[in-house]
């Protein structure tokens, strides 16, 4: 390091006294404490609330953390260097270059996390699928999004996935999540009757969000007739119970109607 560089650095950090160092330590400790408190108590508070309020409260956690960290960095910078434009540009440029080389993906995830906070491709409470992993967003951390899969497994997915992966969001911040129950039936049946029956199966499910539409679509396949019963549950968290209920009751009703499921012999029947 040349004398000139040493002098520049000394000038930059010239007013760094013991008091300033203590202040910085306190700021870091306070920041850590505030973040820990928000991460611990806001989810507990959210658990006491119902419906959308719970989602709003959960969404506050990453936003508050970002605010706290930004505030802390500004406070520290104010104490470490003289807040002139030259100093700031110099410091941040050097910092960015060093960190960028050292941990490109890590920083990329951090930046993607900031972008995710702004663009909101997912929010806490959303049901998303990223690269084949499906689950409910529990928390949005600085570097990762934490989702819980239907098998109760927590998956931490780096935010940088938003740069080049398709993010599938099933409810996109709302309570409305479309569920689909599939029925594969033997082709010899009265399709109109089955359409009405499946519609009523959905209509009479206690899980149904009745204010949303119910749709039944039909497609003829080589092995039989494929019915898709599409409806919305009251709570997205009930989606698997809802599909199960539709399937169980739908099958029972179809059996009572005398409609058989599509099976391999059905193809043989058709061929003969």
């Amino acid at each position, binding site marked *: 390091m040349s004398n000139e560089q040493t002098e520049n650095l000394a000038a930059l950090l010239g007013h760094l006294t013991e008091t300033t160092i203590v202040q910085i330590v306190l700021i870091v400790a306070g920041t850590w404490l505030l973040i820990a408190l928000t991460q611990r108590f806001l989810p507990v508070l959210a658990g006491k609330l*119902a419906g959308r309020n719970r989602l709003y409260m959960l969404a506050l956690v990453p936003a508050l953390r970002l605010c706290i960290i930004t505030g802390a960095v500004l406070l520290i910078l104010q104490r470490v260097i003289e807040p002139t434009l030259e100093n700031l540009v110099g410091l941040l440029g050097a910092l960015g270059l060093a960190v960028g080389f050292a941990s490109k993906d890590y920083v990329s995830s951090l930046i993607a996390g900031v972008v995710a906070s702004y663009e909101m491709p997912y929010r806490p409470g959303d049901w998303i699928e990223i690269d084949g992993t499906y689950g409910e967003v529990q928390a949005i951390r600085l570097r990762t999004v934490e989702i819980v899969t239907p098998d109760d497994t927590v998956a931490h997915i780096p935010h940088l996935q938003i740069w080049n992966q398709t993010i599938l969001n099933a409810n996109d911040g709302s309570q409305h999540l479309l569920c689909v129950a599939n029925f594969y039936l033997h082709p010899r049946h009265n399709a109109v009757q089955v359409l009405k029956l499946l519609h*009523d199966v959905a*209509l*009479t499910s*206690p899980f149904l969000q009745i204010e949303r539409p119910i749709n039944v679509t039909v497609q003829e396949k080589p092995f039989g007739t494929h019915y898709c019963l599409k409806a919305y549950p*009251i*709570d997205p968290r009930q989606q698997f*119970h809802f599909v199960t209920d539709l399937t*169980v*009751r739908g099958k029972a009703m179809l059996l009572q109607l005398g409609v058989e499921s599509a099976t391999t012999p059905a193809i043989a029947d058709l061929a003969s």
Partner: protein
Amino acid sequence: MASSAPSDQGVAPLWQYVAVTDYCPPAVTVEHTVRTGLSAFWQHFCTKEPPPETPFKTEEELQSIPGILLERIAPAPDGQRAALALDEALTAWLDSVQMDQPVVLVLHPPYGMHGDILKAWAGLHEWRVLPPPTTGQIFRRETDWIMSGSANLTSWVLPNLERCYLRHAHGLTLVRRLLDQACSGALGRGVIGCDSWAWAFLRRAWSGATPPLLILQSFDQHRLARWFQSFASKSGISDLIFRQADNGDYVLPPPTDTQNESANISDFLQQLAAYSRGIPGIAHAIWRASLRTAPDELPKDASTAKESTYQPTTLWITPWRRFKRPAPTTDLLRQHAFILHTLLLHNGLSAEWLSQLLPASSQPSPATLYRLESAGLIKQQRNGFWQISPLGYPAIRLFLKSEGYLTDDL
């Protein structure tokens, strides 16, 4: 079509049927909203009892009113007066010779007494009252029940449409056929009574045009005061005074000869009207539960009271904030939301049919039902049907609405 029962000039009638668009439940006061919100918030984080206050009459000094006396002071309402109001509301429809509106639908919220009212109205005109089909008939889709019930008839009353369907894939055929035939005029002229929750579901399950709707106007604090006062007047007990136990405020206006300028009027009825959403049956149940008397102030019969020893009888009302309403936890409500919702949609069901309508994951065991009963949320009727309790209804409705369940429009 909307109208009312005979009343004093210049005063809103006690019983009044209006179009659904004119129905207005009593507004919840800001104080009540803030107090309820704060107390719910407080309950989540604190289990400490609030500090004691010095009441006008302590709870130890008061006792429940004996059953026989209660039946005189706040008897179970009959549907006669409401039937007269309904009759007036239906006059134009009855006089009409056109058959473009063969059916009128009369909606009532839970505990709106619609069964009694419609039967009383049918009695006024000697129209045939159609009994509902059995649950077995509904389930088996025995649509000939409709024709067998109304054969050779041109005028009929079906008091309980909610008893004609089940929320099951096999439980809708019969009611759809009934509504189709009734609204087409094939069954002659009819008046159908329906629970508001059942209708909220049926109007989504049936695609026909909605017939003219009538509803009993909600009871605000003024109506409640007149209603409760009319019970007291007919009780045969000499001057009754209703005062709030904690501060002595008058809940019902005192008799003119006992009135003094310093008498404060309690806001109990305002709170009651808002909490019960103006539903007379629910307000009446809470009113009965809040009545107390002091052992040394036993009510006297008007016939035995002498003018020389005249002393009005005071009945004490439990203050609104001390009145014990069911306060279920959110967890309990969330866990059993399907049971509560299904009971509301059918205005009560037997345990057997409740099991048929619920998914396997929410089957109601006897223990579950008794747990909900002990929490004050449901009660069992004499016919074995489980029904939402009148005191639990407001809390349950509020919860179901906040969770996005289908609720009535009232």
